[in-house]
C-alpha cells in the first residue's frame, strides 16, 4: 500500500515549502497568521474538489461536471433555506445527497452507456448548469435574491477554531476518509486495478461498473462539500457558482501526481497541489505582481512542475534499468 499509494510526495512537498519560503521572504503580509487563515479557508474547497477529482482520474477518467454540480447543490441549498425555509440540518444533507446523485448519474452514463468520461461529464456539465438555472430561486423570485442565508449550521464553515477554519477540518475529514478508502479497503485496491488495467480488473471479477459509479458519486459528493463551503462563505449561492473550477481541481490533482492515464496517484498530492496553486495566487498578489502577469507565471510553474516530474520518472526508469543490468 505504501508503495502504490506512495504517501508523501517528497518532491512536491519540497516545491511547496520552497514556494512558501520565497513568498515569506518577499512579503511581510505573507508571513502572518492572517495569511495562513486566508490560504486555509480560501483553498480548502479547491482541495476538496481535487480529492474528489482524483477518483475519476485514478480510473483513467475525468469529471468536468464538478463546477456545475457545485452550482446545482448550492442553488438547491439556497432554495431549500430561503424559499422553503427548511432548517440547516435538512438543507445540508439534502444538498449533499443531490450532489452525490448528480455524480452517480455521471457514473451510470460512463459505466452503463459506455460513454467516454470526457464527453459524458461535458454533457452533464451543460445539463446541470441548465438545471441550476431552472431551479434558481433567484430568478423566479428576484425579490428574495439578496436575502442572505443565516442558519448557523449552514454558515458554520466560515468560522474558525483558533486560526484554523472549519472548512479545513472538513477537508481533513474528506481527505482522511478517501485516503483510507484508497489505502486500506478492497474498494481502493479495485480502483487502482481498474485504472491500471481495466481488462484485468474485469477478468478477476471486480465489479467495474459499480466502482465507476461509486467513484463518480464520491466526486459529486466532494463537489457538494465544496459548494457548501462556498455557500457558507458567501451566505448565498449564485447560478454561476463553480464555472471553470474543474480546471483548477484537475490541475491540482495532476500537480499532486495523479496520472491522467489512471492507476497512479494518491489524494495527499492533490491537496498539496490545490494549496500550492492557492499560495501562488495569494503570494503573487501580495508581492505586487501585476494581475495579468500572474496567469503567465502560474502557467510557467505548472509547466515546470510537470517537466520536473517527467525528469524524475526518467531518472527512475534509468535506475531500474541499471539495477536490472547489475543484477540480471
Amino acid at each position: 500500500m505504501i508503495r502504490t499509494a506512495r504517501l508523501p510526495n517528497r518532491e512536491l512537498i519540497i516545491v511547496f515549502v520552497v514556494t512558501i519560503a520565497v513568498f515569506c521572504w518577499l512579503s511581510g503580509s505573507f508571513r502572518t497568521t492572517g495569511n495562513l487563515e486566508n490560504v486555509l479557508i480560501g483553498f480548502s474547497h479547491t482541495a476538496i474538489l481535487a480529492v474528489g477529482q482524483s477518483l475519476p482520474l485514478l480510473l483513467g477518467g475525468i469529471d468536468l461536471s464538478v463546477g456545475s454540480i457545485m452550482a446545482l447543490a448550492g442553488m438547491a441549498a439556497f432554495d431549500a433555506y430561503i424559499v422553503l425555509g427548511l432548517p440547516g440540518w435538512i438543507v445540508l444533507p439534502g444538498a449533499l445527497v443531490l450532489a452525490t446523485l448528480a455524480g452517480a448519474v455521471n457514473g451510470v452514463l460512463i459505466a452503463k452507456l459506455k460513454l467516454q468520461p470526457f464527453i459524458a461529464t461535458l454533457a452533464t456539465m451543460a445539463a446541470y448548469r441548465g438545471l441550476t438555472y431552472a431551479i434558481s430561486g433567484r430568478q423566479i423570485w428576484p425579490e428574495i435574491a439578496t436575502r442572505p442565508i443565516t442558519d448557523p449550521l449552514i454558515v458554520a464553515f466560515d468560522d474558525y477554531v483558533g486560526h484554523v477554519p472549519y472548512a479545513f477540518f472538513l477537508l481533513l475529514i474528506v481527505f482522511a476518509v478517501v485516503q483510507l478508502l484508497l489505502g486500506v479497503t478492497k474498494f481502493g485496491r479495485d480502483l487502482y486495478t481498474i485504472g491500471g488495467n481495466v481488462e484485468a480488473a474485469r477478468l478477476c471479477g471486480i465489479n467495474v461498473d459499480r466502482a465507476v459509479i461509486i467513484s463518480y458519486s464520491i466526486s459529486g459528493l466532494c463537489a457538494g462539500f465544496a459548494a457548501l463551503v462556498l455557500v457558507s462563505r458567501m451566505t448565498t449561492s449564485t447560478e454561476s457558482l463553480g464555472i471553470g473550477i474543474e480546471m483548477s481541481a484537475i490541475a491540482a490533482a495532476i500537480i499532486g501526481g495523479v496520472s491522467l492515464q489512471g492507476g497512479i496517484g494518491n489524494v495527499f498530492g492533490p491537496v498539496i497541489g490545490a494549496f500550492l496553486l492557492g499560495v501562488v495566487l495569494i503570494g503573487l498578489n501580495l508581492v505586487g505582481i501585476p494581475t495579468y502577469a500572474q496567469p503567465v507565471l502560474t502557467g510557467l510553474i505548472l509547466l515546470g512542475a510537470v517537466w520536473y516530474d517527467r525528469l524524475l520518472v526518467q531518472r527512475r526508469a534509468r535506475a531500474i534499468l541499471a539495477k536490472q543490468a547489475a543484477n540480471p
Partner: protein
Amino acid sequence: MSKKIPAHEGTTGTRRQILGGFSLMALAAGAAATGAVGGVALTASSGPAMAAPSTKRRKMVFIQHQPHTVSTAWSEGLAEVFKVQGNIDYQLLDGQNKADVQISLMDTVINDKVAAIFLQPADSVALAPSVKKAARAGIPVITLNIDATAPHAAHIEMSHYLGAIEIAKAMGDKMGGQGKVVIINAPPGQTVRDARTNGFMEGLKRHHPGIKVIADQVADWDRKKAQDVFSTLLAANPDIGGVYGVNDSMALGAVDVAKTKGIIDKVVIFGNDGEKDALESIERGELAGTQFTDVFQQGRFAAAVATVLATGGVPATAFAEQGYLLMPYVIATKETVASIQPSQRW
C-alpha cells in the same frame, strides 16, 4: 432586482443635483461632471481631508469582476487621481469572473492592511461577508456599479435598473408603442444582468404595455454569439421591431446582423454601458441608443472618496450609513450623443 435609492427614486432626468462635499472631490479629480450622493458621514469629513496630503505611502487595490472595458476605464480613472496624489500604491486585481476568487482576494488584501478597497462584486450577497470582514478590519470598501448587501463606505453606480427602464421607454417611443422586441441577454448568475433585465421589463410594462417581448436568449456578453442569436431569431421572426442588448457588445452584434440584412432602419437596437464603439455606432445612425456614463469619472470619484476616507480619520466602523453616489447617466441617442465629450469616451 430593485435597489433602494434614497430620495432619487422616480427622477428620470439625465442631470442630477450634487451635494456640496463632492464637488470638491470632483474638482480635485479634474472633472466637471456632476454626481449625486446620499449619506451623511462622507460629506462631513470630506473637505479638510483633501487639504492635508500625507507623505505616508498607502496601498489601495481595485478588485475587478473580470477583464473588461468598463473596469479598465475605472482603473484608469483611479490611477489618474492616485498619480496626481503621488503617495498611493495602486494595484489592480482580477476576480476572474468568479465570486470565490474575489472572496479570496478580499481576504488577501485585508490581511495586507490596504488603505482602501475598490470592489466590483460578482454578486451583491456573495461578497457581503468579505465586505463585513473589511469593515471589521477598519478598511473602507467602495463598491463600483454593483452594491454589496453589507454596509460599507460608499457605493458608486450608474443605476442599471433605472437606466434600463429609460431604455425601454426610449425604445418604445421610437417603435411607436407597439411591436415585437427581443432581449439578447447574459447568462444568469450576475447581478448586473438581473438589474438590467428586470428594469427593461418594468419599463415596458410602465410605459409601453403594447410592446411584446417575444424572445429572451443568452449570448454570453459576446458580440459574435449575439450575431448568431439575432440572425437565428430573425429567421423565425422577420418582423422584430426592437432589440435590447444587455451590454453594448451584444447590441452591436445585433447591429452587425441588421446591417448585413439591410434592415437597420427597421429595427430599433439599444445597448447598455456606453462604450466608445457604441457611441460611434449611434452617431452613424445604426445603434439607436445606449445608457452612457463617464466611467473614467466614476473611477476618479471613487479615488477621491477613498482618499478622503483613508486620510480623513473616518473610522470604517462609523459607516452606519453608507454613502451612495449615483453617477449621472445619459440615454445616448442620435439626439443626445453629441453632448458626450471625446475625453469622456472610453
